């Protein structure tokens, strides 16, 4: 090859092609989505996160949770994510609107956490119940079954007198997360073989002065501190758990066909981005390529 110019042009050209093709154009397509809302401008989803939840996200990123836990539910035709009760529907770009950094994950040495907060919530307090869902729908029934042991999201372990069959805090409640982070193998037969690292550095072991702290961990066996001592979460640990409890993609999205047959929000959102995303193939189209409207035959 002679002459530098063709080489330079080629080197720039090929890379510009890839840069525009894989980052710039997709960014035009899904890089400016708006939250979805109903006609009255209420029922907005997703909402920006702040305070402890936002700080919890940075704790999650700093300690590399992403190397073992994903935060994305894949569609039922491609994976068993929904069968595993990791979510009622597949994840869509809109779910991650305000996430920074976005923590989709690339490996699953641990279960998916996209809906871990919702799964810890008591059944009655579900933010977006699906009233018109057929009762016999298997995924819906399954989701309910997964939630039934959870009774309380109350941070105080004393308040969570729960139907957890193994004793201890209700599954995926705040108290459960704290105990699980401190002693991952102490929870139940499910976690006994877990190889999740213990995050004891997020907790403080201190001498009880006066009353036992309300947020002290209820530890048993080898993990329990000696008498007169207690283990309490640091601010980072509280934020991390607040962040985990906020993980919830159960709100229906117009562009996603819910596997459980849950009703999508009535009416169409006024945002132009929403209609762009509803184009077939644009984002998260169902396998049959059905437009979003076809996903709601059972609603209303």
């Amino acid at each position, binding site marked *: 090859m002679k002459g530098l110019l063709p080489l330079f042009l080629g080197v720039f050209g090929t890379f510009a092609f890839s840069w525009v093709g*894989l980052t710039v154009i997709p960014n035009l397509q899904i890089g400016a989505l708006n939250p979805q809302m109903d006609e009255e401008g209420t029922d907005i989803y997703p909402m920006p996160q702040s305070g402890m939840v936002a700080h919890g996200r940075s704790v999650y990123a700093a*300690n590399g949770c992403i190397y073992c836990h994903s935060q994305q539910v894949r569609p039922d035709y491609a994976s068993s994510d929904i069968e595993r009760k990791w979510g009622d529907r597949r994840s869509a770009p809109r779910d991650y609107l305000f996430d920074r950094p976005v923590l989709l994950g690339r490996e699953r040495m641990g279960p998916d956490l996209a809906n871990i907060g919702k799964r810890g919530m008591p059944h009655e307090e579900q933010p977006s119940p699906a009233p018109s869902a057929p009762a016999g729908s298997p995924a819906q029934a399954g989701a309910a079954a997964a939630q039934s042991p959870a009774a309380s999201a109350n941070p105080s372990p004393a308040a969570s007198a729960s139907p957890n069959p193994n004793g201890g805090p209700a599954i995926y409640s705040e108290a459960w997360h704290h105990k699980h982070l401190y002693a991952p193998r102490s929870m139940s037969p499910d976690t006994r073989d877990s190889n*999740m690292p213990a*995050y004891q550095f997020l907790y403080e072991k201190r001498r009880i002065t006066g009353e036992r702290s309300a947020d002290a961990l209820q530890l048993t066996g080898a993990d329990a501190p000696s008498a007169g001592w207690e283990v309490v979460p640091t601010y980072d640990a509280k934020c991390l758990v607040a962040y985990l409890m906020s993980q919830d993609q159960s709100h229906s999205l117009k562009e996603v066909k819910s596997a459980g047959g849950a009703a999508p929000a009535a009416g169409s959102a006024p945002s132009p981005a929403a209609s762009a995303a509803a184009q077939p193939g644009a984002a998260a189209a169902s396998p049959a390529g059905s437009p979003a409207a076809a996903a709601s035959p059972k609603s209303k």
Partner: protein
Amino acid sequence: MTPATDIPLKQPAVSATAGEAEQLERALIDASTRVPVLMFYASAMVWLLIGTLLAGFVSFKLHAPDWLSDVSFLTWGRMRPVHMNVMVYGWASMVGMGTAIWLMARLCRTTLRHPLLLVTGAWFWNIGVLVGVTAILMGYSTGYQWLEFPPYAAAILVIAYALIISWAILMFRFRRGEQIYITQWYLLGAFLWFPWLYTAAQAMLFVVPVQGVMQAAVSWWYANNLLFLWLGAIALGTAYYMIPKVIGRPVYSYHLATIGFWTYALFSSWTGMQRLVDGPFPAWMITASIAATILTIIPVTTVGLNHHMTMQGYFPVMRYSPTLRFTVFGAMAYTVFSLVGVLISLRSTARYLNFTEASVAYSHLGLYAFFTMVMFGSMYYIVPRLVGREWRYATLIKLHFWASAYGVGLMSLMLLVGGLAQGASQNDSTLPFIESIQSVLPYLRGLMIAALLLTVSHFIFAFHFGLMLFGLGRTSTVPTFLNPVEAEGSETHL
């Protein structure tokens, strides 16, 4: 076939078959690159040892999750990104730049001007990696894979890189000879692609952050292109230099090389999104990347064929030349790496293997079996020409080669098969999730044997390199061969 031992093996390091003027020119060029290239190599070696120890630590900690759990900076989730970043930015990038500088100087046939620029650049780069690694340990990771360094560490790397690239452009400005050799295409490409790639990713993630899932797309685009267009391009360029050089024979076909280069640039830069298969992205992005991955078969076959035809009849030289043995191993691993990449990227298999250890196998095949082995080969060629000594112990080179080859082979096998087992139980929703971890853990224990082999190999090499650095190599007019050369008359030279 016995043409192998004719010309190339008799060549001592500092002389050449060409005329004396050319010999002198080469010696002068080598002398001018001495300080900066050794600086890059020595730094890279230190990072390699650190990264290797970290790999062992990370690998062990996976089986002892309660160990040291009250020390924040030793937690698995911080040590693992530190290991990756040390290997990618400390070892791979530095050794790659060292080799690229030397090759550029040789191929531009010009002595290296302003070596201070490069030495300063190397210092800045080291500081940048150190700052970045410290930040991750202290809990300031950005959370984007391969881009965990916080922006201030990235800024130091960019400054360092500006110093290094300004030198490369100077070098090209003063080059002699009209022809631009294949290696120079790849190196020039790598030198220009990397800053664009790095600054574009930094800008889209930190300066003018893109929204939501686009951040993941940008970071995958970055990670794959870093592997292909930065490290991969350097390694391919190096192989195109070393193989013909050692066997003393021109490259088989320039046309094939041209096709290989441009298809490589075009297709491999479009890969990456297949790792997000079925994720929350427009389906066309993923399909485009899968198609591009399949199309990388074209550069793989052309480059592989070209190397093979060049080597035809000269394969026995691998018995003697350390450089050739490492380089050919790396060039072959490039084929394996790319084919594995295609196999795990097809939509059906990607679904199956998406979240398993198979992707770790893939990056190790690329970063180690391909890139690192070619770099080892180039160091065996270049270091003697810089220090004026030959490698002291053939046994150590052999040990290094076999420990590395078996180590990376075992590692890839364990991770690939483990990934298959893991994917099988992950996708079977009748099994509890914990089963998928239990099914891969035995393979990860096997991985520790591989990690041990690689640790041994790297410490042997570091020791040998240290001997060379301190002037304790052999004083000889012939290079160190892995095995005694049987050709008649060679004894008198040895």
